């Protein structure tokens, strides 16, 4: 469908392209910088974008491959970067799954059921998520250290504590999914009810399959949120082998010594799981899943 364009429009199209190209360059530049820093010998934040000599020392460090020290001995990297990455992936996967389960069911109740206090609860959710979690950091620490006395599994310095803390931050997800549910005509679930489905069956076998795209989006958001989260992880996790990537990477930056090169290599590593999950999820983010239900 090509609309006929006036000749005077052409310079506008050119200007628009120029603007977009500059914008893309601005967005991509920091990423290129990080890649460049990770491949540069030494730990320098500044320098040329294309390094003169390429060194894999930072990548060896990040991947935990022993390297030759100045005295000729093999030195094993002192920080378990890959373990942190694994911790991050583990916590993010579990907490995103739990968050998804809680928010889809809660959103269903808010979108389809009638109950007392619904408006107040929705508003409460909205208000609560307006305050950054950092404000409650001390409380979170106190709560989990207390929980740890009774259930050590969920105490401070446990991944489960972090999962529990992350799974609580679903107010926005509930609102998002609720909005999506409301675009699906209720008649489809009514048809299922007449067909003999219980409310749970109507939800599980009819509504959820139609909501796949939004569920994938929410999973992705929750996953990314957990991977990049720093404040709670830094407060709830202590021992070095428990740290997540975001919390652990702080250790590259001492007051006396900034390991920019190692930091950059680890940063790129931490982006990998997000990219992989995104590519996997994209398969399910198909639009138009509900088309065909109605008159058309």
């Amino acid at each position, binding site marked *: 469908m090509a609309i006929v364009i006036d000749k005077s429009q052409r310079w506008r199209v050119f200007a628009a392209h120029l603007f977009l190209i500059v914008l893309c360059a601005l967005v991509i530049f920091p990423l290129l910088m990080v890649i460049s820093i990770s491949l540069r010998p030494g730990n320098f934040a500044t320098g040329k974008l294309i390094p003169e000599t390429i060194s894999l020392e930072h990548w060896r460090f990040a991947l935990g491959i022993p390297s030759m020290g100045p005295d000729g001995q093999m030195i094993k990297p002192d920080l378990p970067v890959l373990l942190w990455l694994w911790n991050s992936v583990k916590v993010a996967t579990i907490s995103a799954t739990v968050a998804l389960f809680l928010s889809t069911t809660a959103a269903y109740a808010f979108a389809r059921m009638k109950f007392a206090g619904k408006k107040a609860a929705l508003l409460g959710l909205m208000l609560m998520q307006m305050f950054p979690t950092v404000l409650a950091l001390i409380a979170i620490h106190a709560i989990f250290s207390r929980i740890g006395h009774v259930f050590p599994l969920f105490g401070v310095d446990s991944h489960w504590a972090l999962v529990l803390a992350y799974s609580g931050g679903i107010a926005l997800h509930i609102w998002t999914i609720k909005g999506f549910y409301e675009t699906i*005509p209720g*008649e*489809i679930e*009514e*048809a*299922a*009810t*007449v*067909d*003999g*489905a219980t409310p749970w*069956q109507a939800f599980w*076998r*009819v509504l959820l*399959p*139609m909501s796949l795209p939004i569920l994938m989006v929410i999973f992705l958001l929750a996953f990314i949120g957990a991977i990049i989260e720093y404040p709670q992880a830094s407060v709830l996790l202590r021992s070095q082998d428990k740290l997540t990537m975001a919390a652990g990477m702080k250790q590259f930056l001492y007051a006396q010594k900034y390991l920019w090169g190692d930091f950059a290599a680890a940063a790129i590593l931490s982006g990998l799981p997000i990219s992989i999950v995104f590519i996997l999820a994209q398969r399910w983010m198909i639009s*138009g*899943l*509900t*088309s*065909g*239900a*109605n*008159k*058309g």
Partner: protein
Amino acid sequence: MANLQFKALRKSFGDVEILHGIDLEIQDGEFVVFVGPSGCGKSTLLRCIAGLEEISEGELFIGGQQVNEVPPSKRGIAMVFQSYALYPHMTVAENMAFGLKLAGHSKTEIAAAVQRAAQILQIESLLDRRPKALSGGQRQRVAIGRAIVRKPGVFLFDEPLSNLDAGLRVQMRVELARLHADLRTTMIYVTHDQVEAMTLANRIVVINQGRIEQVGAPLELYHRPANRFVAGFMGSPKMNFLPCTLVSATERLATVRLKDGTPVTVSADARGLGDGAALTLGIRPEHLLAGSEAGEGRARTAVRVAEHLGDTVFLYVESPGSPESLTVKALPENRLGMGDPAHLSFPPEHGYLFGPDDRTLPRTS
């Protein structure tokens, strides 16, 4: 197979009462059409039967069993929704099988039932498709197929044809009539289209503002409407209404005077009313005559618009003594055109008189 019985059924949403006491009996195997203007409560009544809305007061019996508290799936009903409401992520076969699958029927049983329904509706070639890949008419068939598969005692249709184009609507209407003849199952059908009501129903229930106005066979409603609302609702184009006053009344004939003074006689018994009572004269467009010659008992007006459709001519003429328009369905030979003077005559045997309370006065022809 099931009959239905409504006893003083009421439904309200909060403080707003939608249905004000519905009393009705529907026999086993009947095709009953609920018809009325939008917002009259006919769909709400259907949803009460389906169990998708709770009944506020009164009782509903299906097959002799009181079902007020029975969930939809246990009522022995199947429903076809206005929007079809197909499951978009399932194939046509899965859509039709869904209910049986939930009920725990065996795979061979389900496959046989789906196959049989597909045969009846001639959609066997579509069984593997998703609803997305179907046309509106095909989706409609699938929705009906999903209902047939469950072998319900009562079929409920909520304006099933209103989303189809005109040609397809006529075709599906004929098929629904055939389906009812084949299955002989009780069917309840909601529509605002009186043509669908007239063509499909064994009995029509006319509903207005949450009350039943009249129940009867299609032609009975056409010929003997109980009141002005039913008279205006049944028949297309709708009946003309003219304000008039009673002049004299005998056993067989009543004479009224139109606003412009024209005397008109009607075969109706208006003896209970005093002379000078304000009445409404009703006459259908197909019975109102318009000609170019003046005469006794003819009202002189002018033609506003003439529509020539080939087999008929619709004349929209000024109502004598009032600013409204009257519709005349005339033969194609009628030569009256826009702006021409027209003389209207009212055959007594086709006139209706409505009393001050809008009830139809007894007719004598």
